[in-house]
């Protein structure tokens, strides 16, 4: 179980560490902890895997990565773990998940994300992926993103609320 103080700590850091000389001391002040305890608890949460990573979160679109494609495959169940791990190794892959199929309307069970500077670049990377992982025989689809209607950071606990977590990277 997660200790209540750790939930408070995540709530305090989720909107960003202060850009100041002693950021953890500033967080500590809000929580009635000391700087050493804040650092130790963040270390522990990382080791436990609750915090997947702690660091700079970039905005892809602002950095010129305008093209974002969700690529989905229909991979046999016995192979999906192996293929998922393999696909995750490519540097242009940002996320790779297994999700459920939904019959004929959605036969795909492996999802990955490619961010690229152009549509052509993304398609080129996808071809490279398919060739290298020998995925030619599996059905796939490419869903390029168009309009973004809403994008929010990792507000696991909006200020003033009880519990209301949010966001996948």
């Amino acid at each position: 179980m997660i200790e209540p103080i750790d939930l408070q700590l995540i709530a305090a850091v989720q909107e960003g560490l202060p850009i100041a000389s002693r950021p953890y001391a500033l967080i500590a002040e809000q929580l009635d902890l000391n700087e050493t305890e804040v650092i130790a608890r963040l270390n522990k949460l990382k080791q436990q895997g609750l915090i997947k990573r702690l660091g700079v979160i970039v905005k892809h679109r602002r950095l010129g990565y305008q093209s974002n494609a969700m690529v989905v495959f229909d991979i046999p169940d016995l192979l999906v773990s192996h293929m998922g791990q393999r696909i995750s190794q490519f540097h242009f892959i940002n996320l790779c998940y297994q999700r459920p199929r939904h019959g004929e309307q959605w036969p795909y069970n492996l999802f990955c994300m490619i961010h690229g500077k152009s549509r052509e670049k993304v398609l080129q990377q996808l071809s490279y992926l398919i060739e290298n992982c020998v995925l030619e025989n599996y059905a796939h689809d490419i869903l390029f993103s168009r309009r973004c209607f809403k994008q929010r950071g990792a507000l696991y606990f909006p200020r003033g609320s009880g519990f209301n977590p949010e966001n996948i990277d």
Partner: protein
Amino acid sequence: MLPTLHKQLLNDYQQDFPLSPTPYLDIANSLGVTEEEVLVAFSTLSEQGFISRIGPIIQPNQLGISTLVAMAIPESHIIKVADIVSQFPEVNHNYEREHRFNLWFVLIASDQQHLSSVIKKIELQTSFKTMQLPLLEDYFINLGFQLNLEPQEENLLISA
């Protein structure tokens, strides 16, 4: 073009931001610049919208429960439906994608009951069905996002 220092800050500290009392000083020391330069550079990157924050990414489904949701909406209705969906505080990353399933968003709720009630409300208010795609397995060991900020062609190297 971004200065070299800015590129290094964007690329090298996505995974393991220093967990020490003076993280910005540690970064400065490893890059051979002053702490002040690092603080100013991060502030600039933040103000100019290159970074959203320096913070944690939480492992999915460790705090509360989440699912990816897709909907197939006729083109003439998509803005109206997207607006309804976006109004729920449990919704984030609400995107249009090029597909018959053209509206995609992530829902996060405190538990399954809460999640189901939001899904039900969305279907009721929009009059369209949802397809729920919860995460079954996560294969990606998140090393952050490797930026190639040089103007030349990116190559297709395998990272590991």
